[in-house]
């Protein structure tokens, strides 16, 4: 027991200096800790100040990094320092929206725009019209078919030019076979001097108002009769180049000139640059107050037929829109075009009655026009009509048609259209439309159209 007490006493004696030393150490540590806390407090104040300063600055000019305006945060002003480019530590630490990087790295950087358009048409007509192939879509009467499935690629090539490529697939015959073809491919030189621009490649010609417009964008189910009779089912579509000139005048005038192969078999057909198809167009635009607008133009296309005989087509166009101020769509639209053809062709015959066939050159002047009106009282619904009157380039007779229609857009990218078309042809034209034992002198058609757009689709001018 005594020995144990002695050990305890000795231990206490041995520990007492260590305890004293430890006491001294704790006091030193506390002082150091106090200093450290003071230092941290200073740092915190400094960081807080910096944070306040940074929050008061306008966002840094690097998209995706600058913060959204915090609720109630004082706005930046001119007295505050100008924004510094680059990323600070605070920028990184600051909370961001989850998809902040999208703006910097995603969103198709360096890619062109792409769009797909689907355009389906259905038509119902008389059996004899189907036999004769005399409907608005010859050979496709009483069918529902894909008229135009279009893949468009477009964008800037470099700082000086833009490019467009369009492929089209569609059904052209009853067999159900789908034809795929290159519809357009052209580049536009944008920075030529004196307000000029040039377009080179394969394109829909800017002849009149409707020719340039693709099927799905037309305000009717089918192309106007006069355009089909004078340029064929698909309109004037050529390979070559066009140049436009917009002079610096107080009013808008655009002048266009073009040189093309002349491949269009209905109107021309020479298909060589030795005797090219020359096109021209002048158009102007009048804004009558804020609500009314009128566009007027005149076009010409002059070339040779496959028989190397001259063929010239003149065109006049007009388009009027009434769009009350603040409306998202026009209330009234009126469109009209007239075409006049001057064409020579060979006629074989036996004028002397001697049995000797002679070829005689004759000239035929033909013309035609259409006029259409549309009323759109609501954003999603429009109704209108089109009246067609047209002679034929070579054959005799004429045809007239009236087509009331109604269009419905569930959204900007989806449209349905229902139309009734009545066509009447004069007796002289029967020969051209009584094939296969059918007859298409009088045609009644119910037309239905469904169109959709996937992806990008550029805005259309007036």
């Amino acid at each position, binding site marked *: 027991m005594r020995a144990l007490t002695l050990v305890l006493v000795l231990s206490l004696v041995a520990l007492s200096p260590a305890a004293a030393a430890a006491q001294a150490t704790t006091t030193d540590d506390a002082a150091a800790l106090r200093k450290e806390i003071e230092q941290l407090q200073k740092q915190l104040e400094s960081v807080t100040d910096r944070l306040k300063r940074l929050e008061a600055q*306008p*966002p*840094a*000019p690097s*998209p995706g*990094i*600058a913060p*959204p*305006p*915090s*609720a*109630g*945060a*004082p*706005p*930046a*002003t*001119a*007295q*505050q320092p*100008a*924004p510094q480019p680059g990323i600070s530590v605070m920028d990184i630490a600051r909370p961001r*929206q989850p998809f*902040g990087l*999208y*703006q910097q790295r995603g*969103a198709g950087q360096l890619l062109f725009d792409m769009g797909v358009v689907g355009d389906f048409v259905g038509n119902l007509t008389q059996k004899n019209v189907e036999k004769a192939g005399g409907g608005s879509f010859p050979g496709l009467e009483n069918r529902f078919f894909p008229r135009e499935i279009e893949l468009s690629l477009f964008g*800037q090539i470099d*700082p000086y030019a833009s490019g467009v490529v369009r492929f089209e697939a569609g059904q052209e015959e009853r067999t159900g076979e789908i034809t795929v073809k290159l519809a357009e491919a052209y580049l*536009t030189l*944008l*920075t*030529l001097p004196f*307000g000029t621009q040039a377009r080179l490649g394969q394109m829909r010609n800017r002849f009149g108002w409707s020719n340039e417009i693709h099927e799905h964008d037309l305000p009717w189910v089918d192309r106007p009769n006069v355009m089909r009779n004078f340029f064929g089912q698909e309109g004037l579509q050529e390979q070559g180049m066009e140049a*436009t000139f*917009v*002079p*610096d*005048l107080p*009013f*808008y005038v*655009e002048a266009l000139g073009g040189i093309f192969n002349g491949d269009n078999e209905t109107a021309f057909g020479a298909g060589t640059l030795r005797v090219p198809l020359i096109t021209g167009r002048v*158009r102007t*635009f009048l804004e009558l107050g804020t609500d009314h*607008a009128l566009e007027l133009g005149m076009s010409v296309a002059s070339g040779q037929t496959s028989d190397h005989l001259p063929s010239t087509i003149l065109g006049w166009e007009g388009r009027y*829109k009434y769009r009350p101020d*603040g*409306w*998202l*769509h*026009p209330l009234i639209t009126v469109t009209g075009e007239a075409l006049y053809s001057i064409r020579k062709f060979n006629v074989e015959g036996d004028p002397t009655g001697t049995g000797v066939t002679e070829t005689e050159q004759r000239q035929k002047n033909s013309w035609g026009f259409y006029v259409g009106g549309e009323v759109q009282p609501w*954003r*999603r619904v429009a109704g209108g009509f089109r009246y067609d009157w047209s002679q034929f380039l070579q054959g005799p007779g004429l045809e007239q048609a009236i087509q009331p229609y109604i269009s419905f857009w569930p*959204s900007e*990218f989806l449209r349905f259209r229902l139309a009734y078309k009545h066509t009447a042809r004069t007796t002289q034209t029967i020969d051209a439309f009584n094939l296969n034992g059918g007859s298409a002198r009088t045609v009644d058609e119910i037309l239905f159209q469904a169109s959709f757009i996937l992806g990008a689709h*550029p*805005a*259309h*001018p*007036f």
Partner: protein
Amino acid sequence: MRRTALVVLAMLSMLSLLLPSGQAAQKLRVVTTIPDLKSLAEAVGGDLVEVDSLTRGTQNFHEAEVRPSMMLKLRRADALIENGADLDAWADVAVTGSNNGNIIRGAPGRIDISRGIQLLEVPSTRVDRSMGDVHPMGNPHFSLDPGLAPQITQNIVDGLSRLAPDNRAAFEKNREAFLQKLEREMDRWVKLLEPVRGAKVVVFHPDFIYFLTRFGLVQVGMLEDRPGIPPSPQHLVQIIRQMKAEQVKVILVEPWNDLKLAERVAAEAGGARAIVMATSVGAVKGADNYIAAIEYNITTLAQALK
């Protein structure tokens, strides 16, 4: 020979008439896509610029119709100031039709004021059109947020100075004067809306998120089913319920929206009000310039939320 020389001379004279005169070249000819930017460009450019806008405040900028009259304005422009972020993508079609190489995308005369703006409502998931007219880059309706005016005007100064470097000092001075004026107004605006801070509002179309966020107001719903898609009856019933539950007093409407519909919903929601906001300079009477348009929105909102 003499006859040929005369013809050539006559043609050259005609050509010279078509070229811009030297007097007109003294001022920068600036065109903006929307009127807010016209007002800001005038504030920054002062007497050194002539500014015109392609659209009016009463128009929906998403669906502006590209008219040849736009191309005429752009034909002579030294600079085109655009909002960017997909709001005014139609400007490309107008620029192409104007045959003016000075303002095509990438040219020095093309000024995009969305540079450096942190966009809100940037989609965080895959975007497709089942979501309506959603903007993949984020909400582009930021121009009437006064807190972003410093960045927007800085972009305008930078852009104009690219074309007229000698005038940078003057542009900077004009900008500072404008921003000082804006700051004075801002103090007053913040005080005006302070009592209703945190108030909940419903919008017809999501045009006001920057403005609302700036002044501490909360957007809790939208009348449109999805952006740009007209409201369905079921959606309206749901919104009315939500407005009642959250005691929403105000529906913010754009000038071209169906005001009667908004008023009906507001009435059904129990004494709420539908108010037409200045979505842009010139959108409503009295909103004739940038500050006046914001003033209109602040006072209208403060009164409606009382």
